[in-house]
């Protein structure tokens, strides 16, 4: 039987949802530990009833059948982007008056919700959100029954060919959770990938997202040092901490990789042709992940890989979402162009007071900690102070100045330069204006004399 433990603070949270809502549904966020107990570290209620952008959902949720699958799935996508690697959405919690485990239609509905979450997460780039390999597609459903102040947890298979009947789970609230160990690293990318050429943002996005696969492949072959030393992959975190001399509360990880090998198109006789389009990455991805004492170094390495790739996928998706939103917005007004969406957002971390782990968010250049405070409330239900947000992990992305801009059209896609250039243009126009004004005034001065 699957074993799951959850911090007892979550029980109070469920009870409080029960007081204000007739029915509440939300995400179970946690880590699956191979051959061990799974941990739930956070419960995130899906905003069904509160003031939400989507107007038709303002009514109070009262019936399982009323749950909007798309809303929960979208919530899951937004949430996974804020969850660091190694943690995932393990299932749903449902706060209800009656026990839903015996209600077949409710279970059937929850199965479709879980399937929709899965398909949404699967279709949004490499997020490593799919845990089928570890849980066989069996997702947790934690039901808190307000009438009895009782809870029950079971799994439902998301495999459409399998019956909906839930399987039992050994679920416990524990007052003292386990000791999580934090592993911190940065991953620098300074490399070019050949890209199919297109003038269409949608295509370019698709081609760029495809390069993340190559980055993941390279990362998978990397060597990681922990607090400065290589470790054998079957060492457990517990043993590593015990034997180690470094800081055990925060383990520093260093990544060493072979250089990327782009699939190059040399002709048979070795002649290299210029690539019509190349994407050139620079800068770092800051990463923080958490491992339990029973995790092995191999698992930790996998979590780090998942975290870095999830972070790259997320920030590029957010970047393109913003870019495309502006594109559609209208070409009528240049002022409208959100200049800050022209650089991918950077990652920030925050550590909620009652949480054992940190979460993350992505900020564009014009956004600040307040954006994260709001985002964490909306998505995770976490009340933050802006001082809780750590913006030091990554600095604002630097502009890479291209050396060549010798023919028209070459810079049109160089998104970074457009902001710079328009700024310069304004400056130049201003100076020209001033000079003309000066000439005119001097001329007038002499003419009127």
């Amino acid at each position, binding site marked *: 039987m699957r074993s799951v433990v959850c911090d007892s603070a979550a029980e109070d949270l469920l009870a409080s949802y029960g007081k204000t809502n007739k029915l509440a549904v939300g995400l179970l966020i946690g880590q699956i530990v191979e051959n061990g107990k799974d941990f739930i570290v956070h419960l995130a209620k899906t905003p069904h009833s509160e003031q939400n952008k989507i107007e038709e959902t303002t009514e109070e949720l009262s019936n399982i059948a009323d749950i909007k699958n798309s809303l929960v799935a979208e919530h899951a996508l937004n949430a996974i982007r804020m969850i660091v690697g190694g943690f995932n959405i393990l299932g749903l919690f449902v706060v209800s008056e009656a026990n839903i485990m015996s209600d077949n239609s409710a279970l059937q509905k929850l199965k479709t919700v879980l399937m929709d979450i899965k398909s949404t997460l699967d279709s949004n780039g490499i997020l490593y959100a799919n845990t089928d390999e570890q849980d066989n597609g069996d997702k947790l459903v934690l039901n808190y029954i307000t009438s009895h102040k009782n809870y029950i947890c079971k799994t439902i298979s998301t495999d459409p060919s399998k019956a909906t009947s839930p399987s039992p789970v050994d679920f416990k609230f524990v007052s003292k959770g386990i000791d999580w160990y934090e592993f911190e690293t*940065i991953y*620098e990318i300074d490399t070019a990938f050949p890209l199919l050429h297109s003038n269409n943002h949608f295509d370019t996005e698709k081609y760029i997202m495809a390069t993340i696969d190559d980055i993941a492949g390279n990362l998978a072959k990397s060597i990681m040092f922990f607090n400065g030393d290589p470790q054998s992959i079957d060492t457990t975190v517990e043993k590593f901490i015990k034997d180690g001399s470094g800081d055990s509360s925060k383990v520093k990880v*260093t990544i060493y990789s072979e250089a990327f090998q782009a699939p190059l198109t040399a002709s048979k006789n070795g*002649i*290299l042709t210029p690539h019509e389009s190349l994407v050139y990455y620079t800068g770092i991805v800051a990463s923080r992940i958490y491992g339990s004492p029973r995790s092995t170094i191999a698992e930790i390495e996998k979590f780090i890989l998942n975290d870095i790739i999830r972070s790259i996928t997320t920030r590029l998706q957010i970047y393109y979402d913003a870019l495309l939103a502006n594109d559609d917005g209208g070409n009528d007004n240049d002022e409208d162009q959100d200049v800050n969406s022209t650089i991918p957002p950077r990652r920030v971390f925050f550590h909620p007071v009652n949480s054992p782990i940190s979460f993350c968010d992505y900020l564009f250049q014009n956004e600040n900690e307040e954006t994260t405070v709001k985002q964490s409330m909306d998505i995770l239900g976490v009340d933050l102070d802006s001082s809780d947000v750590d913006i030091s992990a990554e*600095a604002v992305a630097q502009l890479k100045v291209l*050396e060549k801009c010798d023919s028209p059209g070459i810079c049109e896609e160089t998104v970074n330069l457009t902001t710079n250039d328009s700024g310069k243009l304004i400056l130049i126009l201003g100076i020209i204006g001033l000079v003309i004004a000066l000439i005119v005034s001097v001329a007038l001065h002499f003419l009127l004399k």
Partner: protein
Amino acid sequence: MTANLQISQLVVNRLKNLKDVCGGGLFGLMYSKNLIIMGFDLESSDILNFKKMQDNFPTETDLCGLFKFGECSDTEAHMQEILACVDITDNPILLKCSHKGDEFELKASQYRNGKLVEIEYEVISEEILYRQFFYARLLGYVEIAIDNNVKSIKNEFLNVRKKLASGNVIFQCQDHRIFFDTDKVIGLNQEAVMLDLLDVLKVKKQDEGKKSKKEQIPTDFTTININCLIKKSDENEKNSRAALNFVLERNRILIPIKIDAIAALHINTKTMALYDILVESLCRTLRLVEENVLEQTEKVSVPSTFHFKPDNFGHFYTCIYADSTPDDEKHLTSKRRELHQQLGIALTRPVFRRSNNYNFSVTNSSLLVNPHVGLKSSVIGGKQSLVQGKYTYHHYMQDNFNDDGWGCAYRSLQTLCSWFRFQGYSSTKVPNHEEIQRYLVKVGDKPSNFINSRQWIGSMEVSTCLHGFMNVDSRIMHVTSGSELASKGSELAYHFESQGTPIMIGGGVLAHTILGVDFNSNTGELKFLILDPHFTGSDDLQIVQNKGWCGWKNSSFWDKTAYYNLCMPQRPIMF
């Protein structure tokens, strides 16, 4: 403090054989309190060669002085310039060479405070050279994006070199958890020297290998492979921690560069010193690649690295060739000609063709290379004339192919082919039995049912195939009986001295390979160094040598009643 001077025996031998030469630069290696001269180049009148050749020598092998013959005005003129370029020592070396009749005289002096002081030197034998020095081969990969113009190429290569040289890489002993970082060695004692490292790497090999393999007298340098990894988590201040960003660029060429660089090392060098040496290796090879890319006209093609170790040289020499340029292309041929001249190598043998590329992996192959090394002959007053260069031992039952009883001449032919491959005359792979049979059918020598048969071939067929596969002509020597071979001492000795190729002998009976003769021209006593293809066991040197599968044989080895044909391959004149 001035260093003790040592000179490689191979350098002395090469200097001795130079004719009509004024002088040139000396390349050497500093270690502990010694300076050992490993190689040299020849300087002619106008241009100074050593400057552009420096990067082609292994890392740590640097210009350290000059040598000259007699009183050559050219060299006098260059001397000051060469001396000014010596970086690795404050006391450059001058070797004065002279031929006095048959005698060769070599005197060494050293510049100390602007004055020449004659010094003693020690000649280091080949065996000691191979025992005390080894090479680290650095392997890795980088890609450099360029616009196809000189400025961009220079800029981008400079940027990459800067980045790699600023602590952005770490080195790993291939297949071992031993790492070399800027300030520490991981997986070894911080005080460890290279010998300790070699021990660690070797212990592992012995564990894996079969027991009781006889240790061969070293005939070459040990090489260790080191991987170059890029640091992705560089925490130092240079890193601004700027978040991930990207730009789209257009019409750039991505050049794939397989890093393959070698550094010469002494066993007593501290492993701590390796990081800086390997970084210099990286930079050297990138400078060579850059030079190659700049030389390429119009279209850029993939630059590939080739390491050459000419016979009796005692050091490597590295060249980068563009993949699109074939060996026989005019420009490349003329570059090779120059190189032969600059290094004092006759234009009669291939040395810097792609197929001469040093085969680092040969020791990993199960085939025995030169199994005759270490065997002793006992002809009193005899002179040994042996096969020159390398070959592999091919015999019955190899490649999971049962040719017991009929394949001996095929195997002997394979050994001959391997020799031509090793020596760079051909890059064609050693043919198997079926390929040999197909070729003989194709040229009309055999009927079509010969393919996949178990029929023998003889010396004539071997000669035909050598021509077909390796483009090599052979001389056929016919003897009417085995006893006649006893009178062929001078002729065979001459073959091994002038051609140095292995000989296939067949005829009425079994086929063998002759690798050399030991001949006393006064007494007429003669022994043959035989490589026997009828061996069916595993490739264990001890068995092969002790049981005489490779060994010295008397004339009585040959059948007195049978006739023999000897296929004596002739080296093509090429370079």
